[in-house]
Every structure is written in structure tokens, then in C-alpha cells.
């Protein structure tokens, strides 16, 4: 099922009204400076069968029902950057997550995006969505379809502009592909959440005078970190199977094939792990370092329980 909702249709369905509390309850959970009582766990499934690697990575974290209780309405956020190899979340991974959600008894499962349908078609994700019978809700880049979410502890970004339809869901599963990025060298679970923020707001992450104002150089990274204080996915499932390590995020570029799927709830730990897959030091990646500094997670992998297993 594919739906592209314009402002009028969105209002007509009532989806845009009176739904702010649901999200405030479950998703807008900035966790700045919370003491970590238990070490973060990162599950890593390895192998060339990406569906099985996905199930393994998530299984290493414990029961899936912890993340998606029965009756949940689940929003999925895969990366649909382009159809260039290594630039988009693999269809097999999406299918595996959908299967787990169904098995857990999810009431509704939908992919949300403001990207054009062509991106979903070209990447093969639309075919998975249709064959699995879940929703594909595509939104116009209309500011009225996004709602303001204050970020009181945001350093650069004081207000996110999140897809209002997110309020209709109990759980968000963030499904990026980790890869190179021309702007800040790395993209992973932290940056993928820009896919829920309005394009107009995202544009402000790149300041017009960043080339001349020294304070602006890390503005993009800081905005990404602040945005992550406004949204807390229930689970992050990162495609690290075949990834762009140059000329990202769009490609084409050099590919690396770690053949890994990485899962967890700690976005900082996950991104720190993924950065290391192609030799980047987490504390050299500004967004990861600042996210750790703002209490969003653990950057020191020695303090993280990393469980890596082949699926067989």
C-alpha cells in the first residue's frame, strides 16, 4: 500500500490533529546526562544472508517484544538515499524487521518518509513493502505536515520539525545504512533521523555562512545531535552489509562489505562501532563525540557489550 499524503488529505483523515501527546509519551525522550545503570549492548549479526544476520543481531539483544510489544503501531525509517550500491538500506533487512514486528503482534507497520516514491521503487524497498502488505506513507515536503518539537537542551537546534504522522505510532525503528558522508565523514543511526525532520529544517543544519564563520563548522553535527534529543527510537537496526566508504552518502563510490547488521538502542555506541568498521575513530567524528557529550550514549566501546555472532 502506497499513500502520498498532501496537506489537504492529511487534515481530512484527521491524522494531523490532537496526536501530540502520544509521541511525547513514547518518542520524544531526550535522555541528556542520565547515568547509565547498565552497559549498552550492541548486537551484530554477521553473514551474507542479510535477513538471517538481521534476526541474529536483534536476537542478541533479547526478546524483540521488549522493543515492539503486542499491539504496537510501528513506524519504520529505512534510508532510501539513492539506488547506488551501498547507499540504501537493503530490502532483505527491511523484510526481516517487518517479519519480526508481525511475529511480535504489531498492530500496524508503516514506513514513513518525505522522499519520493521513486526512491522506494529504485531501491527495491517498495516491492518488499507491498509484498509484506505494510504501509508506505509518503508525505509532501509541506511544512504543515510537520510539527514543532521543542528541544530545551539543544545547543544549536532549539526546535525539531518532525513528521506529525509520527505521533500515530507507538514505536519507531530507525533503519539506516552506515556509510561515508561528504559533509561530516560518517552517517549512521544519529544522522538517519534527519529523514523524519522537515527538509526545510534540515536545510538550516547547513548554515549559509559556515564557510566563513568559525562557529558554524560543526553546526551540522550539532544539529544532528540536538535532533536526536527530540526523538528516541525504540530500536536501531543498521545496515553494515555493503557500504559506501567514499563519495557518500549518494555514491557511486568505493564499497566495503563487512556483511554485518548492527542493532541496539544506544545510538552513540552503535555509530561508534560502525565508524570503526572502516577505520574511523569515533571521537574524530564530531556528531558521535558531541552526542556522547550530551548524554545520548556511550562512545567508549570498551564500556559497551558488543555481541558479534554469525547467524549459523
Amino acid at each position, binding site marked *: 500500500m502506497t499513500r502520498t499524503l498532501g496537506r489537504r488529505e492529511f487534515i481530512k483523515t484527521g491524522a494531523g490533529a490532537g496526536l501530540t501527546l502520544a509521541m511525547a509519551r513514547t518518542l520524544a525522550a531526550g535522555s541528556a546526562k542520565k547515568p547509565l545503570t547498565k552497559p549498552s549492548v550492541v548486537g551484530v549479526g554477521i553473514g551474507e544472508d542479510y535477513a538471517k544476520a538481521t534476526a541474529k543481531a536483534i536476537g542478541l539483544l533479547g526478546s524483540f517484544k521488549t522493543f515492539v510489544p503486542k499491539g504496537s503501531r510501528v513506524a519504520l525509517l529505512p534510508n532510501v538515499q539513492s*539506488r547506488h550500491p551501498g547507499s540504501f538500506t537493503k530490502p532483505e533487512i527491511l523484510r526481516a524487521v517487518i517479519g519480526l514486528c508481525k511475529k511480535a503482534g504489531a498492530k500496524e507497520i508503516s514506513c514513513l518518509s518525505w522522499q519520493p516514491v521513486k526512491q522506494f521503487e529504485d531501491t527495491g524497498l517498495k516491492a518488499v513493502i507491498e509484498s509484506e502488505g505494510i504501509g508506505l506513507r509518503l508525505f509532501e515536503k509541506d511544512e504543515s505536515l510537520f510539527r514543532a518539537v521543542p528541544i530545551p537542551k539543544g545547543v544549536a537546534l532549539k526546535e525539531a520539525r518532525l513528521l506529525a504522522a509520527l505521533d500515530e505510532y507507538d514505536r519507531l525503528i530507525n533503519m539506516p545504512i552506515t556509510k561515508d558522508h561528504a*559533509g*561530516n565523514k560518517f552517517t549512521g543511526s544519529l*544522522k538517519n533521523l534527519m529523514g523524519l525532520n522537515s527538509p526545510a529544517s534540515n536545510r538550516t543544519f547547513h548554515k549559509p555562512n559556515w*564557510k566563513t564563520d568559525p562557529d558554524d*563548522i560543526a553546526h551540522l553535527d550539532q544539529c544532528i545531535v540536538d535532533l536526536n534529543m527530540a526523538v528516541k527510537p525504540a530500536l536501531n537496526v543498521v545496515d553494515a552489509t555493503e557500504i559506501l566508504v567514499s563519495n557518500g552518502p*549518494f555514491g557511486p*563510490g*568505493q564499497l566495503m562489505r563487512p556483511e554485518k547488521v548492527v542493532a541496539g538502542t544506544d545510538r552513540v555506541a552503535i555509530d561508534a562501532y560502525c565508524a570503526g568498521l572502516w577505520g574511523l575513530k569515533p571521537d574524530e567524528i564530531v556528531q558521535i563525540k558531541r552526542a556522547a557529550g550530551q548524554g545520548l550514549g556511550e562512545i567508549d566501546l570498551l564500556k559497551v557489550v558488543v555481541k558479534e555472532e554469525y547467524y549459523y
Partner: protein
Amino acid sequence: MKRLRSSLVPAVLACLVLGGAWAGQSGDGGPKLASLLPGSGDAQGWSRDGEPQEYPGQELYTYIDGGAEIYHEYGFRAVIVQDFESAAGKSVSLEIFEMADPGAAYGMFTFKRSGQGRSVPLGSAGALEDYYLNFWKGRYVVTLTGFDDSAATIAGLLALGRAVDAKMGETAEAPGLVAALAGEGLKPGSVKYLRGLLGLNNVYPFYTARGLAFTAAVKGDYESGASLIVLDYGSAQARASAWADLNAALENAGRFKRTGGPDAGVPLFLDGQGRYAAFRETGDRLAVGLGANPSAAIAIAAQAR
């Protein structure tokens, strides 16, 4: 996004001819991007698949969401995208980027190539990688992407590349600043020509913008393992002022630590990656030598022309 409709082409052509203009030209005298696309028979065995899509100016953000900034930093005008298919069922995507000037095209080409590819005789320079190729010519950067690395796909990349190349009349030389890199031991495919901080941050991050308002820069890697960056500021006065700012920023940066070397007159820092960075002022330019030890860093900085 502009969808080009073949049914409209005759009408548009007629209007332009009647108006005294050549339909194959854009407003600034260059050819329209659509006229550079291979037609039927231009690349044997390959035919167009679907309609071309064109994204001018800020519409690039629609096509390359999250990755358009680097094109704009160099100077971007428009891109046209056309898919091709072969009788054997292979697919290739062609992108022709029209940049603001030949320096922008050369710079974007150097930014996009991996340095590991094979040089191919397309345009002014071309690089064939595992499953894609890039070349530049005049104000254009051409990228062809296959979706596997089979011989048939690679042959298609080259055939389509040659067809585009043949339609491009413009030629240009690489910017003169490239010659500032010392020739001996230079890995040609490693050369990156830069026009702003976004590009510089990708090849060597200073984690500051202070003193880095250069007009253009170039970086190259050497067989010895050393690297050389040359930043051009346009005037000796601008360079001196910039270096004062950058030096001060590095002195106060956690990721750089000032250290001593064999030549006390050469500012030397140890960066967060464990490499040494030596700085040398020369005319309008600032040379930055990067090496595994102080001597290597100082030596490569001294070779900047």
C-alpha cells in the same frame, strides 16, 4: 525536477530556430544538457530507459538529499540523469553535472574518484572503478554507474562514456594550483582540488574554520606515505593573516599539539591521528606537509612549488 518530454522537442526547436537561437545551446552559450545524452546508435547495444530528469540549481537537493552541498561548494549549475539498458538486461545510470566553470568540474571529478581506479581516455581525465566511472571535460563532470561489475556492464560504461565525450566540444586544463604539488612520488589519482571547507574536511580536517578561508586548495598523497596540502589565499597579505588565525586556533585545539622538530623555524604540530603537520608560508600560499615523523612532514612541505 524537469521532465523532458520528447514530444515537445520539435515544437521547442522550432520556436528557438524562429527566434534566431540555436536550440542546442543554454542561456550562457553552453550546450543544453539533454543534447549531450547518447541517442540510439551512439553506444552500440545500449538504449535509453525512461525519460531523462534534470535538476537545476537548488533542485539538486531533491536528487541528492544530504549530499548536494559539496557540489554547490564547487559551483553547480545543473545535472541531467538518464538510465540506459542493454539487450542483455544490464543497466547503467548516466549523470552529467554542469558545473560553474572548468575548475569546479575538475575539482568535483577529483573529489569523486577514489584514487584506486584505472585511468581511461575519456574527456580531460577519466577513472574507471569497480562498477562506475567518472570523467571531466570543460565544465562537465560525467558519472556512469553500473549495477554490477560484469564485463558487459563495464563495456557499457565505457561505450556510453565515449558517446558523451564525443558530444562535448569544450575542453580545459586542470587549474594551475595543481602544479604546486611536488611531482616526484606523487600518486596522480590521489590529487584533490578543493574550493572550500567541506572538501578540505573530507581530505584533512583541521576541526576549525579559522584561517581557512582559502580561495582554492590542492592535496596530494605520495609514495613515501607523506601528503601535501597547498592552500591558496590569493595574496600574501591574506595568507599571512590566515596563517596567524590558523596557528592560533591549532595552538588552542585539543586535537593538535604543538611540538618541536629538527627545524625550529618550521611550525610543527602532532594531530589527533598521530601524524605530524608542518606549515610553510610561501607567497600567496600556505603549504602543509603531513608525515609519519617530523622530518617527513617538513620535507614534503618544503617541496611545495
